[in-house]
């Protein structure tokens, strides 16, 4: 046993072994019990959270015709940390992208997150998908996700329907529902009804191995959630009328708005020039969007709600109505007209004189309306010109002017009705009827959108009441889903008796021997209307027309604005007439008028 003299060293060796074992247990306690981050990492490693995208709601017109639907497409997603690409060139060739594009895409995915999937290449067609998926197993970290693209059976109503694009950072910050690569309504109805259309995303949890192969669903799918399809939107729009209007407006700059006066539903809303909504779908969306944005004609602007125009003669009925309501004139009040030598505003038409209100509307006599307007301002019951203008201003607001309807497509503007305060400021408090005389004939500071103009036609047709104009009849499959403001009947507060007088005068614009639209009378029904030729400081006069029909119980109220086209009766009136004919009778019996509009267009330069 002489060699065993160091046997006390067994204790040191034992101690070393126990210390090492102790270190291991402590370390494992921290690693396995205290630290939670590894549990998270392990989920990211093997669980792939595959978002199940809901089908976006579709959009129908008033007759149940499909206007927007979905078509399958595929997004290629990447988890940068898992991505392995041996041959980048072959990969680029497979995806039909170039090397710089590959790099920027990969870099942006990595910037977003190294662990979470983000869209690498979006909206791959069904055909390419089939080809790529066969080779995708070479590239761990990449996988497909089914998406949908918007499709438009008729290439119409781009401004109204709007478009869908990928969310930006601001969208993601505003609403946590959105993740990189998600789609969101960018304009039009798609934007306004985003929350209804988008539906609810589902989540499928798949297990994947390190080679990116799916190994079945996690826990047999008990944590999976199903996507909820977006709600369908049913419009008041008549797709056929919209398409026809867009055709008539080809090569013209301007706008047409048609409203169902009984409900406030917009039947057609046309802004010209327009574009094919299919352009803003799919991978070329960005390119096409920039082209449209930079086009000199500004096709992206929705002139029907964003464009403002002086209403000109179409405004005269409003002054007549306010004057009748306040007793400033009555139906027999006559003012004389010296034609071109009238002061302070000359008359552009030749007619017998003096005229009462009925004929004055039919003949669009400027001096009559100047005197009418002056009578409102000097009406003793309105207590002075300035107070009278304030009263007048309030009435204009009651007609839906000078403020927005808050209709259901974005980018609506308010237009302008000048107020007493405005003139006090501009003229330092010293002004009178003479100063603001342009208001009498719808010129000067007054600005209306075509939507407001169409609504005026609806108000007159309804004899004083209206519903705020809107696109939608129904959201989803249940009834009474419209925002309350669209079903609330508003009144101008002017006696229907006065409206009947004005209506009858507008009837004679079509029916009377001297009516400015008598050439555009339709045999099958009686229509009432008013032309407008609006002086435009930037060029040729704008051509305006407003109308409603049938006269007895209006089903359509319409406003047409054609920029730089000259007389209202030449261009705007026939467009309105044909559209009313199509909507009310279902056919066009005046092909020569249609042919004229399709084959000619106003020369914006010639007088």
């Amino acid at each position, binding site marked *: 046993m002489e060699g065993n003299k160091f046997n006390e060293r067994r204790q040191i*060796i034992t101690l070393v072994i126990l210390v090492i074992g102790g270190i291991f247990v402590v370390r494992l306690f921290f*690693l396995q019990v205290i630290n939670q981050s590894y549990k998270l990492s392990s989920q990211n490693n093997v669980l792939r959270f595959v978002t199940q995208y809901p089908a976006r709601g579709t959009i129908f017109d008033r007759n149940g015709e499909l206007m927007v639907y979905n078509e399958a497409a595929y997004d290629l997603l990447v988890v940068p940390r898992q991505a392995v690409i041996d041959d980048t060139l072959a990969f680029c060739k497979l995806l039909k992208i170039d090397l710089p594009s590959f790099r920027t895409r990969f870099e942006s995915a990595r910037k977003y997150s190294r662990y979470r999937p983000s869209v690498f290449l979006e909206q791959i067609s069904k055909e390419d998908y089939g080809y790529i998926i066969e080779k995708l197993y070479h590239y761990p970290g990449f996988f497909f996700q089914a998406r949908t693209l918007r499709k438009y059976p008729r290439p119409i109503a781009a401004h109204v329907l709007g478009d869908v694009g990928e969310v930006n950072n601001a969208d993601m910050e505003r609403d946590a529902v959105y993740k990189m690569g998600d789609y969101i309504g960018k304009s039009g109805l798609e934007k306004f009804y985003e929350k209804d259309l988008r539906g609810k995303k589902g989540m499928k949890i798949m297990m994947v191995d390190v080679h990116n192969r799916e190994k079945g669903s996690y826990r047999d799918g008990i944590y999976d959630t199903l996507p909820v399809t977006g709600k369908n939107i049913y419009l008041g729009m008549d797709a056929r009328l919209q398409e026809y209007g867009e055709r008539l407006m080809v090569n013209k700059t301007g706008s047409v708005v048609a409203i169902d006066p009984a409900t406030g539903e917009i039947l057609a809303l046309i802004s010209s020039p327009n574009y094919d909504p299919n352009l803003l779908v799919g991978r070329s969306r960005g390119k096409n969007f920039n082209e449209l944005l930079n086009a000199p004609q500004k096709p992206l602007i929705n002139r029907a709600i964003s464009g403002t125009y002086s209403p000109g003669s179409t405004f005269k009925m409003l002054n007549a109505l306010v004057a009748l309501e306040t007793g400033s004139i009555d139906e027999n009040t006559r003012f004389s007209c010296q034609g071109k030598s009238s002061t302070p505003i000359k008359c552009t038409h030749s007619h017998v004189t003096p005229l009462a209100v009925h004929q004055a509307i039919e003949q669009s006599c400027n001096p009559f309306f100047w005197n009418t307007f002056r009578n409102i301002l000097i009406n003793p019951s309105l207590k002075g010109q300035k107070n009278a203008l304030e009263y007048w201003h309030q009435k204009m607001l009651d007609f839906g002017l000078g403020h927005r309807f808050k209709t259901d497509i974005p980018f609506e503007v308010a237009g302008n009705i000048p107020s007493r305060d405005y003139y006090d400021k501009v003229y330092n408090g010293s002004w009178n009827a003479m100063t603001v005389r342009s208001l009498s004939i719808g010129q000067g500071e007054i600005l209306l959108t075509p939507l407001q103009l169409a609504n005026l036609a609806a108000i007159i047709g309804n004899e004083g009441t209206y519903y705020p104009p809107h696109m939608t009849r129904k959201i989803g499959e249940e009834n009474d889903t419209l925002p309350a403001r669209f079903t609330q009947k508003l009144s101008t507060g002017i006696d229907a008796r006065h409206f009947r007088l004005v209506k009858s005068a507008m009837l004679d614009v079509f029916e009377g021997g001297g009516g400015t639209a008598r050439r555009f009378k339709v045999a099958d029904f009686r229509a009432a209307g008013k032309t407008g030729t609006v002086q435009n400081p930037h060029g040729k006069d704008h051509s305006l027309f407003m109308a409603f029909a049938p006269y007895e119980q209006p089903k359509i109220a319409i406003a047409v604005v054609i920029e730089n086209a000259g007389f209202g009766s030449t261009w705007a009136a026939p467009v309105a007439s044909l559209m009313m004919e199509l909507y009310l009778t279902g056919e066009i019996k005046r092909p020569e008028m249609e042919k004229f509009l399709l084959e000619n267009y106003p020369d914006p330069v010639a007088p």
Partner: protein
Amino acid sequence: MRENQNILSRIELPVLFLYLALTLIGWLSIYAAVFNEDHTSIFDITQRYGKQLLWIGLALVLGLIVLLTDSRFFNGFAFFIYFATLLMLVAVLVFGSTVSGSKSWFQIGGFGLQPAEFAKFSTGLALAAFLNRLETDMHQTRTKIISIIIIALPAILTLMQYDTGSALVFSAFVLVLYREGLSAIPLVLGLIAIVLFIVTLYFTPLYVIMGIALLLAGALFFIKRNLPNIIRLIALFAVASMFIVSVGYVFNNILEPHQRTRINVLLGLDEDLRGAGYNVHQSKIAIGSGGFSGKGFLQGTQTKFNFVPEQSTDFIFCTVGEEWGFIGTSILIGLYLMLFLRLIRMAERQRSTFSRVYGYSVIAVLFFHFTINIAMTIGLAPVIGIPLPFVSYGGSSLWAFTIMLFVFLKLDANRLNVL
């Protein structure tokens, strides 16, 4: 032959049970690690778990043969076995095939044999036989040098096969020499050298040298300030400085690039999660995700879906950690500690130096494997590819460890017959 008739009654049964428990845990863990829906039978011979069962069976046969062998054989043939193994190590350099960068395998049919695994056993035998001689004394330089040569020869041959991990295992025999009387100073110096090495990699050598100068200057206040002491301090400073300067050279010129990366990753100087750091990172995720009680048998997702490389061999501990949680890992570590303490007790009760030295060799080798393997999977040591004894997949290592352990069991069972 009386010796063999009641061998089973004299064998240290707790060690035998611990051995069986560890191999069983290993087999089940391998099944869980490479589990495959297409081959659910744990006996499927085409899969690693099926093969491992075969290896276990053969290991038990080998163990039985060892137990039935005359115990004098091991002492008598120690050097013969030792030199035979050295020959095999040389032969593998010439005829061997390369597996994962190491030319350390004999490929016989579909089956590989790694001589380095057996070299650990034969080195233990040779060392024991050498120190068993009456004339040896750890205080003699001759004894030290011969002992170190016995250890170094197979280590160098293994290093030449580019199998650094297995070569490092031979350093474990220093523990045996320490037990037999080798001064602790070399061990302490070795530890200091490792610390200096790491510190130097963290900071620039100049700063480390300045730090040591400050430390030694501070030491002047605590020792007698006479000339010999000052000379000693200066000499110490010179040696330390030279060592520090040489660290940079060794690190950059002698170590292989993958070894440099592994060390850098371990020290946190390099976070290469897709490269060298990937293994450790994934391994920590697997173990950490097990939590307190684990995900359950076959429920581990990290190891099953191949996120952890080598999960059935060097990283088998991950599977235990993921599926059995902290409870499982603690129990496994507890089993090993029980085994080591048992073996120490057995070694100390041997009458012959041969048996005791051999017993400590077994402890040293098993403990080194245990320490390095687990430390690597939980990120406390660089990735050194050596298996976890009895648990990791692989025939060679299991047989080598079995033979090693069973020889000691046999020696222990026969200890009373030693004069």
